[in-house]
């Protein structure tokens, strides 16, 4: 089936897929901005997303069939390492599929919520900003040039600040949230640039593959150490790594529903990709793991994130804030797997990352549905919704159960993979923390589910009202994907194993 889809690709797509994945949304975002109505802009957004998904599939196919597992695209015909290179291997092919796939579902689902939450005259511009954000995220995932990565990161971030601030029409607290996010995000990005500057001073190149080669022959110096530290802190800020997550809860709680859904499923994930790319590809695994003992610092940080933020989630009265804190805790799971650096650990971390994108996407979509029909995000607003909106709330419940990690859901599969990786590599304590954090997840998800299914409707407005179909379809696609991975995870595990292998290939060679 995969081959037949790819075989449909015209010649221009097969040759320029890596560039088109970024260029298509960029050009269409410019068109979007001039569209008279939000509906036309929505159509263009869906078209751009479809093109990007298709290019991502073509790239995945090319990566899987190419002999060395790498697709390299020289931008403008300037040969790397001097020209900017788009370089796709199994690791970023995975992230491209994730970002574009979620982007497409988000684009389809956006129409009703944007109509409800964004003023008429701003809708076309809203979609333009969304496409720029989407293009930036795809660009981070596809590029093979360190400075180019910074530029894409900032393109997506600046668009994100605007998108978050647009929640200000519904709740003015979105404005200071966006402002704080801007300050923190810019500090993060600037730290990243300082790090890249140090690496450029040490190696004289900006191409990541070339940089990796030269770093192995140069050996470690203080310049390289400093560069590593700045890059990890900078990307950690973008990825909401504990304790650099302070911007996230407010930004997610007050942004427009659609923005929260899209960001929670993609933005932090892409930053984690960049972190993995730098830790393992640019700096060799031997440097990161053996020389710097990455695990001794980051495993405790990840464990604190999992416990502290799950604990904070328990005490939230607002569902979106609760899910935002839970997101920081889940970032802890991913970093835990990545930080121990065994191929099982990295694969488990990436597997959890994908599952988390699916289930958090579904959860925030369901919340968006409630915002649309009942205008409330507090847990008390959710009371009795199980009867009023059974389809939306069943999907919410399944995604929530997956977040807890019950068997037969995706969350269980990836937590199980992480647990085994921890036990195999001698981090038994971390395995206990995974279980403890999951118990906290039972409490916070349980509080909402109890209100949804067992409390009487607190508000007389809650007559039977389901979210619109355009919202239900992407919601159920994500929910069914969660269930499907929970039952049959071999396909996804094959992808994450290949990605982990590509990430750690430096170690395998030596």
């Amino acid at each position, binding site marked *: 089936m995969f081959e037949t889809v790819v075989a449909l690709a015209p010649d221009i797509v097969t040759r320029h897929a890596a560039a088109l994945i970024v260029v298509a949304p960029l050009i269409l975002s410019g068109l979007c901005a001039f569209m008279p109505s939000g509906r036309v802009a929505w159509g263009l957004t869906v078209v751009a997303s479809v093109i990007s998904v298709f290019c991502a599939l073509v790239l995945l196919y090319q990566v899987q069939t190419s002999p060395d597992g790498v697709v390299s695209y020289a931008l403008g015909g300037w040969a790397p390492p001097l020209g900017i290179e788009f370089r796709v291997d199994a690791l970023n092919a995975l992230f491209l599929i994730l970002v574009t796939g979620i982007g497409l579902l988000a684009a389809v689902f956006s129409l009703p919520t944007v109509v409800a939450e964004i003023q008429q005259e701003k809708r076309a511009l809203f979609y333009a900003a969304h496409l720029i954000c989407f293009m930036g995220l795809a660009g981070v995932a596809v590029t093979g040039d360190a400075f180019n990565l910074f530029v894409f990161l900032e393109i997506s971030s600046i668009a994100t600040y605007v998108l978050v601030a647009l929640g200000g029409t519904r709740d003015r607290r979105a404005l200071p949230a966006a402002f704080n996010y801007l300050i923190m995000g810019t500090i993060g990005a600037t730290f990243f640039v300082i790090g890249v500057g140090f690496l450029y001073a040490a190696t004289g190149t900006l191409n990541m593959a070339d940089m990796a080669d030269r770093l192995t022959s140069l050996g470690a110096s203080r310049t390289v150490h400093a560069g590593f530290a700045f890059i990890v802190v900078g990307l950690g800020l973008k990825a909401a790594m504990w304790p650099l997550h302070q911007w996230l809860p407010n930004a997610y709680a007050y942004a427009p529903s659609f923005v929260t859904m899209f960001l929670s499923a993609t933005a932090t994930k892409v930053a984690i990709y960049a972190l993995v790319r730098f830790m393992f590809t640019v700096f060799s695994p031997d440097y990161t793991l053996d020389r710097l003992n990455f695990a001794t610092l980051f495993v405790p940080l990840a464990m604190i994130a999992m416990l502290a933020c799950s604990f904070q989630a328990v005490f939230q009265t607002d569902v979106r804030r609760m899910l935002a804190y839970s997101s920081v805790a889940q970032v802890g799971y991913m970093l835990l797997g990545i930080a121990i650096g065994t191929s099982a650990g990295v694969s488990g971390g990436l597997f959890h990352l994908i599952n988390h994108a699916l289930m958090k996407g579904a959860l925030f979509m369901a919340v968006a549905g409630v915002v649309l029909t009942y205008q409330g995000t507090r*847990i008390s607003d959710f009371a009795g919704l199980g009867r009023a909106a059974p389809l939306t709330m069943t999907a919410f419940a399944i995604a929530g159960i997956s977040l807890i990690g019950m068997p037969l859901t995706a969350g269980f599969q990836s937590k199980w993979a992480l647990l085994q990786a921890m036990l195999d590599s001698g981090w038994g304590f971390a395995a206990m923390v995974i279980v403890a954090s999951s118990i906290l997840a039972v409490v916070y998800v349980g509080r909402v589910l109890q209100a949804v299914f067992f409390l009487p409707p607190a508000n007389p407005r809650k007559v039977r009202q389901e979210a619109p179909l355009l919202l239900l379809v992407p919601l159920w696609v994500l929910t069914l994907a969660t269930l499907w991975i929970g039952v049959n995870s071999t396909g996804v595990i094959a992808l994450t194993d290949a990605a982990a292998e590509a990430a750690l290939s430096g170690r395998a060679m030596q």
Partner: protein
Amino acid sequence: MAEFVLERANYWAIIGLMMVGLYITFQSTNMIKRLVGLSIFQTSVFLFYITLGKVAGGTAPILFGKDAKGHGDGGGHLTDDGHDNLAHGTGETAAVELGVTGNPGGLQEIYSNPLPHVLILTAIVVGVSTLAVGLALVVRIRESYGTIESDEVRQSDIETADAQDADDPARQVA
């Protein structure tokens, strides 16, 4: 010791600016001042890159003297050729600076490395856009809160949250 400090005067200036910028960003409660601090911080990084691009004894990276003559046969041809050669020089100069490889693309004269300048042009654009978005946000915050002091904004947010909690039916039952 004095020599150690003075030799690296440019780096000390960068570190000083960086700390000043970060301090203002963290310490100030006025949002405009925080943006100013952020800009100073970013500017220090721009200077850091520019410093990296300087090659001892090098001049501005425009071909001249013997190098220019080598490529000066045709009028319109010159730019293409020169551009190509320069691009080769770029990576190599940086490498030479660190003693990684030898010949800087067959150039006779010493040039500074132009690549960091180009990078910083991009970074300046990014910085300006961030600043513009930040200032626009401050305008909106001022419109809806009537203040640009972040502690006052936080105070009125807390009051909003308390007011919301007060009419939360779940709290009332408890």
